[in-house]
């Protein structure tokens, strides 16, 4: 179950992870983009943590829209409007709710995926964060009812989808400028998305898996 408090804890925890992962995400983006994804995400979630702490958050809808507005104004890169759109969609689905269960979470993530795809026009396989969001939501749709086993597997599925972007050719975003030269490096936004799911599910379940990342295998 996710409440306003555990949602804020998720954002805090994800922010910590991003701080630790900034260099890795920059390196990945440097290889196939412009080298700023780690910096962008850390800056955005740094601002988000501050903003959430300052705001009086009545419900999860408000929490998500506050996060979204912060991201669209502070991340700077493509990931800003994309993650921003994801949390705007969540804020619509979770409007007025003080807590959400597994069904609501799945419904929310499905709406987010649709939002990300409408925004960036990417489809699964294009070597973008969509690959991870799609893998995550598909897994949740195919594995009802939810158990802690299912949540753990969902997190692993997301990681696997991120790792599998390595061998793909980027079709969207800056990495697509490189065409086939984008092969051999994981998509940075996919990695940041998989870690986001780790932390989101961890907060949601109060203790799902946190995964090991073989960072050197990512590029």
């Amino acid at each position, binding site marked *: 179950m996710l409440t306003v408090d555990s949602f804020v804890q998720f954002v805090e925890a994800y922010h910590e992870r991003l701080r630790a992962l900034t260099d890795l995400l920059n390196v990945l983006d440097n290889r196939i983009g412009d080298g700023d994804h780690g910096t962008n995400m850390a800056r955005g979630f740094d601002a988000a943590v501050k903003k959430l702490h300052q705001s009086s958050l009545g419900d999860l809808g408000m929490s998500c829209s506050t996060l979204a507005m912060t991201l669209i104004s502070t991340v700077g890169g493509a990931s800003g*409007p994309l993650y921003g759109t994801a949390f705007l969609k969540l804020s619509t689905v979770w409007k007025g709710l003080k807590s959400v269960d597994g069904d609501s979470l799945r419904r929310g993530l499905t709406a987010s995926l649709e939002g990300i795809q409408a925004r960036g026009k990417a489809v699964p396989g294009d070597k973008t964060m969509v690959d991870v969001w799609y893998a995550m939501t598909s897994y949740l749709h195919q594995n009802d009812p939810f158990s802690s086993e299912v949540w753990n597997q969902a997190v692993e599925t997301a990681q696997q989808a991120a790792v599998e972007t390595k061998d793909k050719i980027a079709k*969207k975003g800056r990495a697509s400028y490189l065409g086939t030269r984008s092969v051999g490096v994981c998509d940075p936004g996919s990695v940041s998305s998989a870690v986001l799911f780790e932390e989101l599910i961890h907060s949601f379940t109060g203790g799902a898996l946190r995964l090991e990342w073989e960072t050197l295998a990512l590029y």
Partner: protein
Amino acid sequence: MGNVSIVLVSHSKKMGEGLLSLLDQLTVGKVHLASASGLGDELGTDATKVMEILESCPRDSDIVILFDLGSALMSCEVALELLGPDFASRVTIADAPFVEGAIAAAVESSLGHSREVVVGSALSARHLVKMQSDTEGG
């Protein structure tokens, strides 16, 4: 004042401001021009800044947006979604070369043309021949 405002959305504040001054010189006050470029002084775009700049355009004017890269486009689209369908109906994002499209659009707007014509001229800037071979004569 032309009825079509021109808004520039670039990742670089400098690039947006530089182009703005070029357009300014060409349209000599006849067109409302604005730039929502950069993330502060860093490279990037900020959808809330785009919203602000769009909202500060004259209310009776239509708006044409020129953007540099796909991620700027996404910020524009988020801004339009947040401003709502009524506002968005006044705005067209032009899929045109940033500099050449903006110049063509600004000139057309300064001549008092409609949003449709302004957007059309921005799109046509794709086909602009900037270099002419000697044999082409005129």
